[in-house]
């Protein structure tokens, strides 16, 4: 029995208990809180180590070799911390909603934890799919739109992500076939990685397989041009689902690329055509989606599109492929997850109280809800990349990592970095427009809101404090990643 198995099981069991009639709020808060403690405990235990720890394997099939194997290194622990923090905040902020909100939040969180903490490709994939189901259902059943429209949005996301998962499945099957080595098929990630080290694929093949996985994993992360499911889904999704999917579950695609694609195909992203395609796509994320976000005139639209845009920076780390950039990518995955969950959480609250999120109608809310405004500012300035909040550290490492080994000639990677830096200006434009539109200015718009009560502030304070602490002390997370990436 590994501690990781408890961490995965707790939210799933809690969801079951709530479904069977246990008091929803107490059970979910209790389970997620214990989970957070367990994850932090494991991180403390792990500090100073490298490689996989807390491993435990329960064989299920002989051939193909399939087992329920758990194990975690720094990257998985950081993402597990992200999941538990967001899950805690998401269930905490639920007020006056049916039990299905708690159950689905726990299922999404539990599925994400399973995906991050297992080391068998089969289960990594399966847990992610498990987490997607409640996401779709919640958008369709409790989305913030007319029933017909929210169903359409849910279907679009379902089919889109289903198609993406199918491509991903094809890629994973190909990878398993290539790297199983010998007669017996295996889904064990460690075995596959060892085989990839012993007998790497020829360069061209690495590029092809990497590209397939990039499209598969990428459409789960809203990689341009496979992103158009994301904005309507996030804008429509109920608050805890938007927090958990954009904050946590979306990171699964990136985690998969980092965990499965890069170790198996280390040269993949450096193959010229793959590199160029990746650079074009990530610029699409940053520049095209940056402009789309600037055009948005509602807060949910701005947040949803900005979340698509910021994924471009993480893909930039994959294009650069250096150790520094990839560590920065992990840092940014964590930071983005916390900041977007905070913003979506606050956005949901605003929609409940105000009934509208249009900038043209709002203004001057800072006078009535100062604490709310400060919390929002934490999220907004984090996503702008202000030093002292954790997104900055990640972005800086990605940019610097792209410029290591710079010899004096600007390659297409370097030009991409320069264009991506302009995206940082665009983030400031749309975030400050939103902030100006909602919180600054005169308060005579007819829309008022008040600060949440103290206990309802705490989940957001938790997320804001996380941004501040990991932003001022990024080494708390970076020290968990001693081994070089990939």
């Amino acid at each position, binding site marked *: 029995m590994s501690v990781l198995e408890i961490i995965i099981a707790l939210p799933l069991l809690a969801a079951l208990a709530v479904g069977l009639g246990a008091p929803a709020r107490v059970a979910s808060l209790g389970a997620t809180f214990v989970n957070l403690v367990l994850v932090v405990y494991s991180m403390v235990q792990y500090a100073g180590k490298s490689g996989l720890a807390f491993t435990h394997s329960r064989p299920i099939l002989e051939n193909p070799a399939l087992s329920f194997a758990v194990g975690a290194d720094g990257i998985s622990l950081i993402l597990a911390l992200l999941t538990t923090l967001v899950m805690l905040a998401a269930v905490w902020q639920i007020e006056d909603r049916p039990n299905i909100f708690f159950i689905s939040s726990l299922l999404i969180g539990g599925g994400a934890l399973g995906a991050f903490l297992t080391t068998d490709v089969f289960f990594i994939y399966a847990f992610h799919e498990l987490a997607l189901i409640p996401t779709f259902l919640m958008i369709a059943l409790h989305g913030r739109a007319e029933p017909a429209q929210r169903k359409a949005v849910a279907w679009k996301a379902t*089919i889109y992500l289903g198609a993406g998962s199918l491509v991903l499945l094809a890629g994973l099957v190909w990878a398993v076939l290539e790297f199983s080595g010998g007669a017996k098929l295996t889904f064990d990630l460690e075995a596959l990685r060892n085989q990839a080290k012993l007998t790497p694929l020829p360069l061209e093949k690495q590029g092809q397989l990497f590209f397939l996985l990039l499209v598969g994993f990428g459409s789960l992360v809203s990689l341009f041009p496979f992103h158009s499911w994301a904005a309507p889904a996030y804008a429509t999704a109920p608050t805890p689902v938007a927090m958990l999917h954009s904050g946590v579950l979306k990171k699964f695609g990136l985690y998969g690329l980092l965990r499965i694609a890069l170790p198996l195909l280390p040269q993949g992203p450096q193959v010229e055509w793959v590199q160029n395609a990746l650079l074009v796509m990530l610029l699409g994320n940053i520049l095209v989606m940056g402009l789309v976000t600037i055009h948005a005139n509602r807060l949910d639209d701005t947040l949803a599109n900005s979340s698509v845009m910021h994924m471009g920076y993480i893909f930039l780390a994959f294009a650069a492929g250096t*150790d520094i950039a990839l560590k920065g990518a992990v840092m940014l995955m964590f930071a983005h997850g916390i900041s977007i969950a905070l913003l979506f959480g606050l956005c949901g609250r605003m929609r409940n109280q105000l009934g509208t999120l249009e900038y043209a109608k709002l203004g001057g809310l800072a006078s009535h809800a100062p604490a709310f405004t400060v919390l929002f500012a934490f999220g907004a300035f984090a996503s702008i990349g202000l030093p002292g909040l954790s997104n*900055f550290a990640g972005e800086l490492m990605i940019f610097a990592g792209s410029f290591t080994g710079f010899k*004096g000639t600007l390659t297409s990677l370097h030009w991409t970095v320069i264009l991506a830096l302009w995206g940082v200006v665009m983030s400031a434009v749309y975030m400050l427009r939103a*902030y100006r539109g909602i919180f600054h200015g005169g*308060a005579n718009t007819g829309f008022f809101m008040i600060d949440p009560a103290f206990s309802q502030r705490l989940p957001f304070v938790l997320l804001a404090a996380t941004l501040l602490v990991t932003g001022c002390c990024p080494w708390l997370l970076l020290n968990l990643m001693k081994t070089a990436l990939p």
Partner: protein
Amino acid sequence: MNASILLLLPLFSALIILLGHRQLKGASVLISVGSSIIAFLASIAFLGADDNEGTKMLLPFIDVEGFRAGIDVMSDKQSQGMMFIVTFIGMLVHIFSLGYMKDDEARPRFFGALSLFMFSMTGIVLAGNLFMMFIFWELVGLSSYLLIGHWYQKNSAADACKKAFLTNRIGDFGFMIGILILFGLNQGDVAIDNLQDAFVQGGPLFDVQHSNPGLITAAALCIFMGAVGKSAQFPLHVWLPDAMEGPTPVSALIHAATMVAAGVYMMVRMSFLVTASPLAAEIIAGIGCGTALLAALMATQQNDIKRVLAYSTLSQLGYMVMAVGAVAMAAQHGEAPHGPDPGHAAMFHLYTHAFFKAMLFLGSGAVIYACHHEQDIWKMGGLRKHMPVTFYTFAIGTAALMGVPLLSGFWSKEAVLGTAYDSGCKVLFIIGAITAALTAFYMTRLLIVAFFGKPRTDSAHHATEAPMVMILPLAILAIFSVISGYDILATPLQAMKPPHVEGHQTVFWASIVALLVGAGGAIHLYRGKDKDPVSIKLFANKFYFDEIYAVIVRVCQDRVAWIVTGLERVFVDGIVARLPSAIVARLGSVTRVLQGGHLQGYTFLLGGGVIAAVYLVVFVLPRLGH
């Protein structure tokens, strides 16, 4: 140890106020003011610190294999001198604010942001590497945003703080590119002293300088772009006049004396990079010179007392930037100032300007306070009699700014003009002298219109002298406006002053003539006038920069965003999502016909299936067998 106190004290003050201002109430103000006083005392101790300590690491912010971005404290004469200016003026502004912000409901927020600013500015001053410089660079931008937007209920203030932050962001975009280029070229080391050594003693950076000088020029100009944003140089100068929407003490501290000077400070720190690139040095000198002239022209037609001072700040910052370029140009010709640790003309002007401009702003704050928040100088008049202390201190500041001989501004302006004269480009010197005349003109205009003549409105008539907490900082700053040009303060402050170069008769007489022409012209035009006899639309409307930029933003950003959004919806979503779904739907409607529930159809299909099966079994299978 001193240095970390300087950094942490205001940080703690800001954090305590953020977390506990509801419980602390008035006490939060005292915490902020107290921390600023202690910081000033610590900076005096820091003045005496050993300046050969080099760089010391305080905190490993990011430290992974191959990449360090630590919080490193650099202790040398420049940082010590700058630290003195920042903490000294910071302390006085804190004290002044006690009076000025007495009736403001959001005082804790104001003082909290002020402490945050002190923390960030200290970080810039002490920064030992470029990443740390960038980190605090951005934080200074944040505190400036918070303070300009202190009265966020006013639309003008809310727009101004956004504009300031975004304009600075554009500058920081270049700054970051510059840092990254140096980071790559110097193999991951961006410690400022190591970079300097790399240029002097050889190494990869030195080689690039000869093999690829364009890249060094690009790096220098990119780094300079950060300074263009922060120090509000053309073409990113538009935010500074709008920043006057903030409370006046903020304008004095941040938008006159310290933060806007950070760009100049950073460029002086990086002067080895400017020296390495002749083209960059010329461009920098040109931009500084252009800003100095343009801003001075705009200042001549402003009617808001704070805006006149704001444009004057722009113009003086232009002087400093011009000096940065001119000193580098002179060094390229081999005319570098000699002696151990020579001061830099730009730093010298920064140093004297900080005192008299902070004083002028605080003086204008006292005037605005006394006239019940009236800022139009044409609605003042005759304040000389009502507010004698404010008037005399303001007059001293004005004289220093105009460059009246024996006051501090005279010495530093002469040093700047002297470097322009030595730079080998006489245009710089001529425009510098014209700007000096314009400076004398608009400051004399301001003084005459606001303080002389008769009160033109009731609020000016009933103005009374400001309270003690406000007058005292004025008086102290007035003293420093006089003496800061002389070698009577501590050694690191003396080091600000460049060695006096003999044989600059031309420069001396040019300054005197400029002063007389400018001041004389203003006295002649404005004495006893009740409204502006001169009206030049182009200057009053600031050369229409704001309007032009508004069009650029509307066209190049909003319009493009609108088009891109449309394209994204139609094409990306269309090709990737809607087209496939339409194809599937069409196919579905075709196959649906087959399952219509009609018996004839099913029978037909059944028959077709039987025929196909028979065909396969009889004709195809035997062939496969072969």
